[in-house]
């Protein structure tokens, strides 16, 4: 079994990095995780974002968080992206694959994937 010693090693590795991270996040990815979202597949979408943001080294810039019902259940899983000074982008009917594409093109590349936004799915 994974030991708590391993966890202690993680703590040692991360000490000092914690304060540096705070406040420097300027993009927020918010995944709707109410009943409607979970039933439609929000859990793998969230996990895809969490893993891809880490893998692409974006953790200093991007936070991934969860919220309740966004109020547009028929479009779940819904993901909202907030960035200072920019208009909110709402992605609908998301999947883990689409999430990876959004990380690559939007979070890394700076261009929203218009195809998956609510405006193009009405």
């Amino acid at each position: 079994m994974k030991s708590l010693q391993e966890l202690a090693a993680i703590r040692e590795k991360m000490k000092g990095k914690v304060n540096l991270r705070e406040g420097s996040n300027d993009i927020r990815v918010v995944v709707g995780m109410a009943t409607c979202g979970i039933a439609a597949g929000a859990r793998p979408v969230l996990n895809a974002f969490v893993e891809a943001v880490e893998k692409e080294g974006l953790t200093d810039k991007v936070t991934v968080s969860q919220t309740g019902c966004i109020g547009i259940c028929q479009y779940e899983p819904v993901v909202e992206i907030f960035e200072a000074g920019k208009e909110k982008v709402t992605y609908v009917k998301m999947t883990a694959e689409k999430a990876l594409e959004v990380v690559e093109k939007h979070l890394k590349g700076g261009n929203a994937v218009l195809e998956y936004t609510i405006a193009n799915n009405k």
Partner: protein
Amino acid sequence: MKELSLNILDIAQNSVKAKASLIEIEIDETDEKLTIIIRDNGCGISKEILEGVTNPFYTTRTTRNVGLGIPLLKDACEQTGGSFEIKSQQKNEENLISGTEVRASFFKNHLDFTPLGDTVSTVTTLIQGSPDIDFIFSHNKCGSKVFLSTLEMREVLGEIPLNSFEVIKWAGDCLKEQYQDIVK
């Protein structure tokens, strides 16, 4: 829901909304039966709401007037011939503690039994979303046990937040390794 682990995630989100500081998830499994217990120390449910809560046309939510989470779990267990129970307590003059316990039992061999699915992902998703809440997860299966407590993790981690990627990954791997031992 496709997997019971998704119902567990959803019911635990009710506990998060109820401002619980500790949420316990227990799964007890034998060859025939699977029981899920989700217990929290949140604000509790009033008598009036508790009466309507298993009815899908009841919810306190403002964005949509149908609460689905509890009715979905109730249906999932009752369609296997199992039983559903919810107990809740709010604070008042006599009661200093509040909380809610949801208990759902399933008959695994029934045709309409929904598989449990990825419980590991449910636990890591909960920790990722609510790093300041404590979770105690246990899955007892025919004498073996899978267990994770964020109280223990927090003691080791000190000020390191539980939703750090490395920590979530450790928690997931820790559970996966224990599940491998159960399967053997």
